[in-house]
């Protein structure tokens, strides 16, 4: 596969390491829950439950053999067509993540 890196252009997917659903960026704040049970419920859903769609999938790829950027790639899991590639850091900021 070819991933069109936002900064570097088309790169062979072999240079990247795959993590999984981009929803993994939505990590809850571990201290924001009233009880450990509530925290564990939230982290269980966050870490283990996957939508795993047959179709468009936003997913995290790491340019390990490149510039070490984490990318959010929008890829169709049936056709493998890639329709969007963004820097994960920009996406995270846009989603309101900061420190």
């Amino acid at each position: 596969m070819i991933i069109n890196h936002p900064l570097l252009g088309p790169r062979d997917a072999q240079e990247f390491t795959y993590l999984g659903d981009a929803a993994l960026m939505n990590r809850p704040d571990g201290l924001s829950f009233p009880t450990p049970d509530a925290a564990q419920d939230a982290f269980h859903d966050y870490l283990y439950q996957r939508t795993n769609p047959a179709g468009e999938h936003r997913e995290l790829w790491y340019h390990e053999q490149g510039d070490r950027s984490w990318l959010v790639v929008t890829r169709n899991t049936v056709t493998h067509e890639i329709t969007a590639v963004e820097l994960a850091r920009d996406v995270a900021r846009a989603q309101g993540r900061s420190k």
Partner: protein
Amino acid sequence: MTQKNRITGGQIDRTRTLSFTFDGKSYAGHPGDTLASALLANGVRLMGRSFKYHRPRGPLSAGSEEPNAIVQLRSGARQEPNTRATVAELFDGLTASSQNRFPSLSFDLMGVNDLLSPFFAAGFYYKTFMWPAKFWEKVYEPIIRHAAGLGALSKQDDPDEYDKGFLHCDLLIIGAGPAGLSAALTAGRAGARVIVTDEDFRMGGRLNAETFTLGDQSGADWATATVAELAQMPSVRLMPRTTTLGAMDHGIYSAVERVSDHLAAPLAGKPRQTLWRIYSARALLTGGATERPIAFENNDRPGIMLAGALRAYANRWGATVGDRVAVFTNNDDGLRTATDLQAKGIDVAAVIDTRTGGPLLPGIRHLQGAEVTGSTGRLGLSSITIRHANGRSETLPVTALGVSGGWNPNLNIASHHRGRPVWNETLAAFTPGPTGPVGLTAAGAAAGEMSTHAALHGGANAAIAALSDLGRTATKPDLPSAEDAPLNLSPKWYVAGKGRAWVDQQNDVTVKDVKLAHQENFVSVEHLKRYTTLGMATDQGKTGNILGLAVMAELTGKSIPDTGTTIYRPPYTPVAMGALGGRSRGHDFKPTRLTPSHKWASEQGAVFVEVGMWLRAQWFPKPGETTWRQSVDREVLATRACVGICDVTTLGKIDIQGTDAGAFLDRVYANTFSTLAVGKVRYGLMLREDGIVMDDGTTARMGQNEWVMTTTTANAVPVFRHLEYVRQCLYPDMDVQLISTTEAWAQYSVAGPNARKLLQKLVDQDISDAAFPYMACGNITVKGTRARLFRISFSGELAYEIAVPTRYGDAMIRALMEAGREFDAVAYGTEALGVMRVEKGHVAGNELNGQSTALNMGLGKMVSKKKDAIGMVLSGREGLTTEDGLRIVGVKPVDPAQPLTAGAHLLGHGKAAIAANDDGWLTSVVYSPHVGSSIALGYLKNGAARIGERLRAVNLLAKTEVEVEIVSPHFVDPEGDRLRG
């Protein structure tokens, strides 16, 4: 050595004669021959035996679709099983032998299978061989396995080398026939980057096998001239002997170039084959079409072949298969064979044409509305039986029969992404559908454009379209006039009859087998294929699949496209494993990482061990030491008594800077780092989000905003990846910068009572306990050379780790050993390192198994609940926090003489060896010269509360069992006085 069936003409170099052998017999051929064409020229029709019935077989085709003429090429370590004689390029000294026969090709005892064929109908083995149960493996299967396979591997290492490479182009053209060449001409003249691959050693495709003209020159001459022009274009790369194997995602194609297969052996330094990964913006499939036979009783005898092949052997290779031939066809292309052969002076006995009403061939016995109903000839065709239109039967003596049932476009690659082909009624064949690989279009015969004229123009038009997709303009070259005759095909798949009519010749699947499959409800194409093995042979059903499909369609009363389609998977033709492996084999399987002290250690005669990609010194044998234990014990004792030096460069080092670095470390480590003072080191525990320990190591604060993290050797890469993930994806606004410095610094552990004395001789600064206390770190100099010093200990001794720029690593180990001479310093390897860390109760790889929590490791208190860190929340789950869960313990044999085994399980006294009584296992075992026995770390249920208990360490694999005592994991200096000394 007379080539009795060699006739005039052809594209072979008659000025040179090549000698070769087949089954030990010598023959002669010419450059330009294939093994099959040369054997045919020498009057050899019998070249192989079929898989199941061991039927005598000769070539069916003149190309890579060949199911029958499969031989073993070369000998010794280069022995190459299952090679298609029809594409094996002849070279001087070639040796080949037939396969799957005993004792000889002409007399094969296994031919008895043919007589027993009624018992070997499709799927017969699923219905029997079940009683008695044991007999399947003991009796039946060994017999079946013995009969399995065609050719044999040499069982010797492949002596040849293979390359891999990467190519880039605007337009990849797959196949250099008329369509491919006109496409290449079009795109090449437009200045596009073009790659043309062709599996043949001579480009031109069918143009080399036909007699018709392009403009005023022969097709072959036009091809030669066009190839010559293309070769002059700097932006065009012509790749003959190169098979495009498959379409991958996003315009990537894999191809194998047979660099040296036409030579007796590769030239020095050159590969046998090269695997290319071709990155294309657009691709054209111009792979032509494959002729298909018509099945009839005994249609598999040597001498019976595809009409186009019979013609190709005569036209391209100047070889005839027999002196008296016939043609059996359902289309006009078959008629060409008759006229071409007659023009070559070969006696064409008859043309059996299933059609009626068309014009009759002049000067040839052209039987319309007739069909071939059978054949005779034990090892080769001697006669065929004809049923005339009026039903009269006639036996006609011939030694060759050309059969044409029409042509199937080579849509193979177009279906690699599971795109569905579409049915073309005129051709009665599938053509590439609209849902093929993105960026790939087909042209020429591969797209169903069967005439030469259509191919030339189709190729050019497709090239223009592809380039305009890329925003480039190309103009159509002046293409020569060429034949544009229709096929006039009237579908005919098989001739009804009582006997066996072969559909898949190599796997011996007959029309009857397809009918039986239908009768047993294996009606889908997938079921048909799997039940009868239709299309599973080395030719992948290139000629046979469509026949099977047609027979099944007739039986189900559905149309062929409604019955199923023929789609293919990579590779297009079978490809040598060596080519796919490239250079990554033997010692080059993976790169080797050498430590800075490697050169010195080699001089010391160190024994090295693979640790991931690293080679590390395992121990340093001294004269007189006969076992590794002697060396390791000495290294351990000397280190604990005096001082030892170990290369610890392999530990991962990550430079972490930025104003938020401390806060960042608080997130990735379970324990707190932001409070660490500058100039201090702290041990850190890193968890995965699921609460399991990911890694451990020390992190030093070298400055206000400058930190150096160490990871385990194994986890250096994953930890760095994880840190980048946390930095970019989770906390994008943290001011943190990361870079690996693992390779930049040569780092040595100096451990033992005399460590400080030794180092003080080299270090320019004061490193007294007051000036440089336990867990201190700092930038120092070693006789003027910049260096870093960390007072940390893995061994439990007074210890330091000193780092210098890697280029000085070799000098540093020499300097350390020299300075240590007065203290009897020793170098120690990974074994002694392991002994000392187990003696000290430090966890390492065997304990950091990805299944263990901080609690399991006795480090539960390190997980701070006051801050949010990766893994903090889920490490608290009930299943991970049970009171009686696994805890790390020390284990000692009650009888010091008894050795322990890592991996042995812990069971209570008198408890049966069953899983219910399994209390834990030994993770790491070493011999401790300090304790004077083998000692271990282990995970034990409720271990912390069981110190002092006696259990059995049971190794059921070796049937051994040792009584052990559970002790604290800290075998030496539990209070840590030595560290702080």
